[in-house]
């Protein structure tokens, strides 16, 4: 069973067996415009909730993507190094950003589900 959460910062978090896959929403990629660079963290890095995990850069500007909870980076989307535009074309699919092993899954409680998120950007 997996569960997907959404944050006010327009991130989605899909949790499976204590591992979260994190990306930005379609709304977020639309706001940012064409991405040209994604700065990924090192695998094995430990992050606290609210730390900058990834920086996505559009033609014009750089934006931070935050860790939604404490945990350890278990995998990053290496495909983005050569094709950052995947985040634009498939933000919730091939354009995922990183995976992290969550220290405390309960930190995600209180985040929005998809319906609540959609309502928040409507």
């Amino acid at each position, binding site marked *: 069973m997996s569960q997907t959460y959404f944050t006010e910062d327009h991130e989605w978090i899909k949790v499976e067996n204590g591992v979260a896959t994190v990306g930005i929403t379609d709304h977020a990629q639309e706001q940012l415009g064409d991405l*040209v660079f994604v700065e990924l963290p090192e695998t094995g890095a430990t992050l606290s909730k609210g730390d900058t995990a990834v920086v996505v850069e559009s033609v*014009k*500007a750089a934006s931070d993507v935050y860790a939604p909870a404490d945990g350890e980076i278990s995998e990053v989307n290496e495909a983005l190094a050569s094709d950052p535009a995947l985040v634009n074309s498939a933000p919730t699919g091939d354009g995922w950003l990183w995976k992290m092993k969550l220290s405390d899954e309960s930190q995600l409680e209180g985040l929005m589900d998809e319906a609540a998120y959609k309502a928040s950007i409507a």
Partner: protein
Amino acid sequence: MSNTESLKHLPLEALHEDAGARFGAFAGWRMPLTYPAGVMKEHIHTRESAGLFDISHMQLFEVEGADAAAFLSRACPLDATALREGQSKYTVLLNENAGIIDDLIVTRLGENRYMIVANAGNAAKDEVHLRAIAADFDISFTALERVLLALQGPDAEAILIAAGLDLSDLVFMTGTEPHEGWFATRSGYTGEDGFEVALPVDQAERFARKLLDDERVQWVGLAARDSLRLEAGLCLHGQDLDETTDPANAAILWAVPKALRSEGRFIGAEALQKIIADGAKEKRVGLKPEGRQPVRAGAPLINEAGEKVGRVTSGGFGPSAGHPVAMGYVAKALSEPGTRLFTEVRGNRIALDVHTLPFTPQRYKKG
């Protein structure tokens, strides 16, 4: 971007809304930044076909009268009498220290009549400055209210002809007045062949719609305007030029006629002579960051030893170049193309090489 209430609105704003523009504040105006196609496609489309830009935030000033040439030759490092009718010239307004107040295009339209196109962000300041100078001359100085559209790209000439505006007689940096109240030049800010057409506000929507009916024409926003001009090596006042820079270190001395560099009577002439005699200590250069990570305006330039040797004034990604592009100021000794420099972005050291400008070839239609 604080007070959106006080922003000025483009006369054609509704057209941009209809086109799905995303707006942002720039130089006191609510401006289209991107359209649904996105900055990459808008940029590439301009280079491959034709992009339509609403640049009505820029300000036209008309100068007319017996002293028009003398006035301009005082205000700018320019020999206004040397311009042929219809000829445009890139020039600057300098302060007494030869600091750059603004950069402008001046076009001669008649024996005693010239048109100035000034940057949006400096228009109010320019007007005060120019009116103060004008008091000593027999001229009329008029700020015009116009819509200003730029059509840029290899298809621009044919599109205008199809829309009933044949400007094929113009070559790069010349202008004309095709109708009463209209002013058109073959120029632009993208490195491509193209035109800027100023026209009365009440005729603008009809003309814009006619252009948009041509399937080759796409709106292009400010985001792509910036990436296009940066690839083309063109300066943006407020970033690459300001009152702390001068024509020598900004590497735009080519815009100052040789004779005027030693004996000009324009404002700032003495200071500029001294700067030229002493040699500029730093120089504006192109910068090519290694890898894909953009380096932005404000980033410091450092040498191998980590000492600060300059600063980035514009930077982003060049969609046509296919790599990040930037420009900035470096110590004169480090300004040769190929010189390796560094910067730091979020703690990472990134190498950049001094690069010739432009990054992409300019494709103007010269005479």
